[in-house]
């Protein structure tokens, strides 16, 4: 139990240590932060091992009069994302070693606060604590972009803040509504997600709650129409900032949808699935097409992450095991691959003080190692087998295919467009005649090689052993959670006993939520189709 608290307290109390050491000497602040991040990573790894035995939960009373408790709950999915958070945190500190020159101490304090915010979001079981963490993430990110960003930093920082804040308003209203419905029905005042999921919501109520929560999280995931803050924020953020923004903040949106939105309004989720899949598909093609002609390195990568997140959302809403596993995989891979692309973008900017493609060209001769890494990550981002992205995209496409063959086919075309912009990143910088603008740029320093190397190793490991990521998703369920038909599994849940037909899956195949009921992964693997129970019947979703 102390594991969870220590995971939060280490970065929180660490800020004091960093403040102190920073006061002594600037570089001490960096070292202190690195140590804190590494310790946090270690705790996260232990936590991952612990959750294989079942979800870890710790509850402390916080505001009893309002029914709010300091309720942390970590199961397979959360443990995975926490591991990703701490891993990227370490990389972020390593990367900004000599990029951040002025106000070093406060930079690292903001980084630690941001980490705490994200960890709270991934661990919170209590909805008010979740909202507390959700808003807590905003300000450090605002400062990271605003103070250490590049030329247009203020505009994008404020735009980032306003977008997310306005989104979170609808989320708050929806949460409060469910909170009061639950209090009215059971007379118990609590924000605990497990109990809130028991509330009986009428169809219209579910629709509004779903929409409220969905809009709140869709802004963060950037689903198609609400994405305009992403390119600005990513381009103007410092390297570490855009790494954490791409690697983690986008995932909090998806996590919110998986953990809260779908289980809380399952019927509405099923009803809106076709629309959201439409949006996801648009996102994939829109992101890819908008990315291709970009003149700015980081802006192109930012648009590409809209496309990647389109895959993730598709995976979540496709409603079957393949889609769900693919979504989680893509979240991890996107964090690593696109994060690495941002790192390289940052390194290029550090060396050449520009991000425009027309200034680059033929740099491979000057920077062979960095060129090699960029080549690998460009191919990772387009989903070359051998890297995790391929597995993720394969699962998502498979899931989409099981959902509806046409949707699956359309998704598959998405990776063709992905190839177009990914290649362009590499070719515009490394291939072609060498630019006269820059002479003998320094190649990747050992520190940079270490950071990028670990990311390469991670991606290849997931590429060949996807079970590393998809395994934890099926840790045995928390027995304390009531095992009614409405199992509070992380993702798509279907009210089976309420008789609403599960349009997605034919009766012959196991009902939807058995896919998602956490059961050990090998049970899943031998459960294959023979001819008789073929893929799900695609009645029209009412």
């Amino acid at each position: 139990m102390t594991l969870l608290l220590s995971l939060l307290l280490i970065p929180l109390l660490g800020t004091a240590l960093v403040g102190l050491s920073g006061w002594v000497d600037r570089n001490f602040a960096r070292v202190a932060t690195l140590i804190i991040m590494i310790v946090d990573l270690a705790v996260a790894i232990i936590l991952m091992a612990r959750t294989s035995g079942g979800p870890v939960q710790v509850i402390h009373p916080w505001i009893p009069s309002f029914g709010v408790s300091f309720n942390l709950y970590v199961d397979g999915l959360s443990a995975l994302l926490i591991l990703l958070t701490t891993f990227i945190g370490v990389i972020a500190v390593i990367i900004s070693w000599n990029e951040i020159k002025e106000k070093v101490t406060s930079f690292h304090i903001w980084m630690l606060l941001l980490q705490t915010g994200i960890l709270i979001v991934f661990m919170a079981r209590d909805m008010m604590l979740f909202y507390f963490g959700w808003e807590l993430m905003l300000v450090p990110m605002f400062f990271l972009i605003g103070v250490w960003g590049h030329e247009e930093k203020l505009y994008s920082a404020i735009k980032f803040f306003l977008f997310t804040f306005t989104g979170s308003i609808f989320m708050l209203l929806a949460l409060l509504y469910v909170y009061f419905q639950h209090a009215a029905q059971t007379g118990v005042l609590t924000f605990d997600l497990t109990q809130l999921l028991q509330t009986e919501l009428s169809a219209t109520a579910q629709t509004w709650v779903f929409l409220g929560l969905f809009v709140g999280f869709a802004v963060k995931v950037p689903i198609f129409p609400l994405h305009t803050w992403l390119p600005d924020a990513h381009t103007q953020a410092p390297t570490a900032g855009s790494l954490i923004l791409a690697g983690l903040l986008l995932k909090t949106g998806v996590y919110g949808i998986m953990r809260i939105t779908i289980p809380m309004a399952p019927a509405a989720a099923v009803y809106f699935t076709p629309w959201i899949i439409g949006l996801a598909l648009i996102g994939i093609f829109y992101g890819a097409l908008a990315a291709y002609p970009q003149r700015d390195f980081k802006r192109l990568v930012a648009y590409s992450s809209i496309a990647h997140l389109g895959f993730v959302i598709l995976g979540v809403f496709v409603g079957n095991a393949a889609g769900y596993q693919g979504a989680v995989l893509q979240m991890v891979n996107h964090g690593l691959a696109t994060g690495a692309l941002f790192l390289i973008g940052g390194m290029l900017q550090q060396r050449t003080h520009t991000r425009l493609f027309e200034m680059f060209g033929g740099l491979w001769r000057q920077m062979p190692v960095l060129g090699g890494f960029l080549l690998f990550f460009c191919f990772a981002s387009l989903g070359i087998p051998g890297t995790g992205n391929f597995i993720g995209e394969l699962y998502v496409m498979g899931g989409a295919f099981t959902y509806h063959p046409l949707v699956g086919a359309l998704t598959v075309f998405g990776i063709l467009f992905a190839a177009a912009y990914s290649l362009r990143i590499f070719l515009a910088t490394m291939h072609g005649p060498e630019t006269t603008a820059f002479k003998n740029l320094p190649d990747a320093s050992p520190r940079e090689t270490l950071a990028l190397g670990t990311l390469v190793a991670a991606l290849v490991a997931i590429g060949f052993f996807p079970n590393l990521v998809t395994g934890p998703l099926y840790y045995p369920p928390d027995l304390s959670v009531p095992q009614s038909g409405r199992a509070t599994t992380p993702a798509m849940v279907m009210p089976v006993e309420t008789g609403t037909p599960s349009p997605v899956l034919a009766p012959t195949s196991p009902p939807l939520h058995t896919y998602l009921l956490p059961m050990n992964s090998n049970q899943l693997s031998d459960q294959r189709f023979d001819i008789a129970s073929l893929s799900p019947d695609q009645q029209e979703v009412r």
Partner: protein
Amino acid sequence: MGHYQPLLPDLILAMGATFILLLGPLRDSQNLRDFLRWISLGLVAATAATLVWVNHGMATPYPLVGEGWLTTAPLHTAFAVVFLATIAWTILASTVPDEDAGEWYSMLLFLGTGMIILARAANLAAVFLGLEVLSISLYILIAFRYSKRSSLRGGIMYLLLAGFASGFLLFGMALIYAVFGTLQIAEIRTLALATDMGPMAKVGFGLLLVGVGFKLAAVPFHMWTPEVYESSPGTVTGLIASSSKGAMLAAFIPFLFLLETHWSIIWLFAALSMVGGNLLGLREIRVKRILAYSSIAHIGYVLTGYLAGDTLSANAAFLPSITGVNAVFFYVVAYAASILGAFAALGYIQGERDLTLRDLRGVGRRNPVLAFCLLIFVWSLAGLPPAVGFFGKIYLFSAAINAGYFWLPLIGLLGSAIGIYYYLRIIVHLFMMPADASDPKVHASTLQEWVMLGSAVAVIALGLFPETIFSFLRAF
């Protein structure tokens, strides 16, 4: 003595104030200012102690003291103690020249007297007189630095408009008295609920609402806020924004029965204030005016809480602690802590003309402590998590949702989203802008810096443990 015992706190404060006036002319001793400061602090502490002691252990049908003028309800006593705390805070945080120290501290104490009377008023006359004591001492405090032209302008503007508003208030009270024949609010309440109100009584309460609306600076009556907030001394502005409005709110709680008939008026006040307040501040570059406009918006939020009333409306979910009135109390405390600190911090930054965002840039660099405190206060005003404003806003809106309102909280939250923009601009100018030519000097004695830091820490601590405010309320 038992008869007058309940009036002890007011007596101590008022007589103490006059006593300090007498000490004022003894100008010869050099550190007169510190001497008077500690005496007035002592007086405020004594008042608070006797207030708690007198009202301790009152049974539920809280008796009226002072011939029915003041109530001993725990909520009102808690409000009174909070306002005394704000006065004490101002005494500590304000800087004043030696020769004016006497008047300054006595005025503050008289202001305190006005507030605790108004907060515990149970009689129309008490409401009027408490309000007038409060207002008149404010006239003087606003125009205290008669050497500056702007403070004169602010003073005369506030005086005229306040006079105008209290005229309405008085006329309203006259009509109410004409209909009900009694000055006791409790009796008026029973009479009003018994029969449905005639038009005369409705107009009477309507005019009363005009006076209240002016004091709370709700939208139709908010015009005076920018000029007055800008021209009056920093700490006094804080007091106007927090405790003088708070006192009016406390006095307005017994009038909750108005919700049956005047519901739409208060609803309009709340909605217009939230939208208007947030919209007004968008393009403003003078920092104090930004906070002035934001205080209009905050009153909108509080009125949303007020609308939720104190009883649990029929369809409301069972929610013992978060009734509208408790949420209002929480928010007044939270808002007072942040706005007092913010205006005091701005007060310390010297500048010959009005303080603009550009001046803030120098501060961020030259005086990190002040900048950090200002950041925390703005953070809390914006309603962001670690600070107390976050839960303040959530309690208000959940009380409103609990009472069945949906559109008002939505307007409120969207309004706060617009409002966030100018809070962000303050933070941006404090930390993210390159240093600018104008480099304002910062006058803040060590005591004041410690007070600032203390209140910043308090804002964060209350934000992390909001339960303490409710336990403080339940202690009475």
